[in-house]
């Protein structure tokens, strides 16, 4: 079955698998002082260096978490949103950012029809709250459309207004070059299982870790910012996958050709279909395809029956499919019900893409005909 849902999770890379197998065969608790413990600690510090190198950061800036959601939550924890300060977040952020604040959501920064953050709107919002402690949260690449956000410009504007910036780079890592120092963000979230590592590990990279407030307490791990016995195998796998990011980036031109092949076919044969974010800079692996008037869930079910794993929106809400808040912010509520996401990876072949187009074409024919059958 062709797997075209890499933005939900990616298959584990062999190098990550090998690192995990080695870690799982070890006994020590990384906090133990004996040789077994020190060996386990060594694996964690090796992974920390690999993740730091991949992200263009210093190892001391890397805080391992249980994943991207927790990294986002840690970045936003105790930020004085609702306590005299405020959080501004793009309207297309992941739920773990939009729902991170216990009291009410953040103020939403609008995006353009192409799904790119509206920098002029951000500047107005920053100016309106001059003097109020502000955190701006903007993702590096969107999980549903793949649209790359102008984070460096966001940082420039935000810092000029004294605001800090958190960047969710979960979907961007391994798909575009990542340089924490050059980007200038104050914090950056990463997830292992989106880059060929395992689920259950992630990291928050923080310019000044001491400014963070822990979500969980009770233990000295991760400089007290994330106590609890470390997910040793997960972190080892994360490190190994991070070390392979340069190889992953080398495959981007091929993956972009696959995407263009699919999108060209769709646009040629089905001019009514919409490729959301097509005019914006995008990740090479993501196509968000809208088919007016046809529910995304129906499309996904037919494609699943035809043997293709794609998704309707994000995979995070335990099987429920809600209208996409991302597409709603770009193109309105009606479009938000009709878009599916096709996301490819290093293993995807052009034969799979051609087969997918055939299946999509058959699905389209079936679903666009169905309403008139029902009416008759």
């Amino acid at each position, binding site marked *: 079955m062709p797997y075209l849902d890499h933005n939900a999770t990616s298959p584990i890379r062999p190098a990550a698998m090998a690192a995990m197998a080695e870690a799982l065969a070890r006994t020590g608790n990384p906090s133990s002082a004996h040789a077994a413990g020190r060996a386990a600690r060594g694996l964690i510090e090796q992974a920390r260096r690999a993740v730091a190198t991949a992200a263009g950061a210093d190892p001391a800036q890397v805080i391992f978490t249980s994943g991207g959601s927790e990294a986002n939550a840690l970045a936003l*924890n105790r930020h004085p949103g609702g306590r005299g300060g405020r959080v501004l977040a793009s309207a297309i952020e992941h739920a773990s950012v939009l729902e991170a604040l216990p009291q009410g959501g953040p103020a939403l920064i609008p995006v353009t029809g192409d799904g790119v953050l509206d920098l002029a709107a951000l500047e107005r919002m920053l100016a309106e709250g001059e003097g109020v402690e502000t955190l701006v949260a903007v993702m590096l690449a969107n999980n549903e459309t793949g649209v790359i956000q102008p984070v460096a410009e966001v940082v420039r504007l935000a810092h000029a207004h004294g605001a800090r910036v958190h960047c969710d780079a979960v979907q961007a890592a391994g798909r575009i070059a990542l340089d924490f120092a050059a980007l200038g963000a104050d914090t950056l979230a990463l997830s292992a299982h989106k880059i060929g590592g395992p689920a259950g590990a992630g990291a928050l990279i923080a310019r000044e870790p001491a400014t963070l407030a822990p979500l969980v307490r009770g233990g000295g791990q991760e400089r007290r910012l994330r106590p609890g016995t470390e997910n040793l195998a997960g972190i080892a796998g994360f490190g190994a996958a991070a070390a392979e990011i340069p190889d992953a980036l080398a495959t981007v031109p091929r993956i972009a050709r696959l995407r263009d092949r699919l999108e060209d076919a769709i646009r040629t044969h089905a001019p009514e279909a919409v490729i959301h974010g097509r005019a914006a800079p995008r990740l090479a692996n993501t196509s968000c395809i809208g088919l007016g008037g046809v529910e995304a869930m129906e499309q996904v079910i037919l494609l699943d029956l035809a043997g293709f794993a794609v998704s309707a929106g994000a995979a995070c809400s335990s099987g429920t499919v809600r209208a996409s808040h991302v597409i709603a912010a770009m193109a309105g509520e009606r479009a938000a019900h009709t878009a599916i996401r096709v996301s490819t990876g290093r293993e995807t072949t052009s034969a799979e893409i051609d087969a997918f187009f055939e299946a999509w074409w058959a699905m389209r024919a079936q679903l666009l005909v169905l309403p008139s059958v029902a009416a008759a």
Partner: protein
Amino acid sequence: MTAPSPTRVAYPASDPPHAVYLDYQATTPVDPRVLDAMLPWFSTCFGNPHSTQHGFGRQAAAAVAAARAEVAAAIGADPREIVFTSGATEANNLAIKGAARFLRDVAGSPRDTIVMPASEHKCVLESGRALESEGLRRVVLPVAANGIVDRGAARAAIDGRTALVSVMAVNNEIGVIQPVAEIAAFAHAAGALVHSDAAQALGRIPLDVNDLGVDMMSLSAHKAYGPKGIGALYLRRRPRARVQPLFSGGGQERGARSGTLPAALCVGFGRAAAIAAGERAEETARIQSLRDSFLESMRARIPDLRLNGDAQARAASNLSLAFPGAPALAVLEGLADVALSTGSACASDTVEPSHVLRALGLDDALASATLRVSFGRFTTAEEVDFAARRLADAVAAVRVDESPAVQAAHVVVG
């Protein structure tokens, strides 16, 4: 299909080849049966368990559901009562902070007090301290010299102001088993919720949420031959125990804990929990006899050693031994081939004496002369003999070095 007997399971191959591992309360090796169950969920079956729109995701979701059922069955719970977390530290934080915040902020309860014994794990004590900084009251119960919580103090402290009582099942440093069911009965009579940190208890003592009468219970996989990075919080459905999440976002785990579930870790935890529950009786009998022979052998060599914590109400896996006049760090320096611990691994960033040993009334000298020896599934009689001999020699050597005559000689030489 019969599971292989635990004594015949090969010790994981790439472990430090020369050291005898007697630190099973810091972490346990992953049981090879657990590893076998996990590996396919890392590799060929890699789907996101929340992507139920396609086969990859549904396959992972089914594996997570089966694992949830195994964890639930191991503690007499319903699968819907299990919330997977990244481990026991997170589960303890979620239970204590989450329940107290829910009562205060959502239920509007006037109950403002959290009660916990002084010997709880740091993450329980610090969760309570975090609530203090939010304006709630934390009452820390004294424990007796044997490490068991003072029932009279508990009865006196738990009242109509009490929102939550948290009592661990098995202590991580001294192995003492607390009377959770009794404390739960006091607490429920006063209308309070009950949480138990059972991270050290799974597979070591009988563990049934209904027998114990708890509303919430924290579990850890890696203390029971499962992988690190996964644990669970049991949340009773009837009557309903509710928590505010520590963080939000995808809404997984019925809204209590967001984030993509690591299917492989869940599967490993499920298998580990099933083995722990199924083999506990036989395994603890075997481990207890090894432990008792170790203690006997140590007593014969070092007659003045002290056993910290109650000798009877104690997990079969644990010894906490004080060797007067032999600082533990000095003993460990001469003991590279036996892996032991001075206390809990989680507190290793500090050199303060253990808060647990202090709660028992040990002075700093005795507390810092204490070693935890913990035995487990792969411990052999040969290892026990070897370790007892080596430890006794190391203690004796340190005592010579620390004796007044040798100290005086050092002064002269220096």
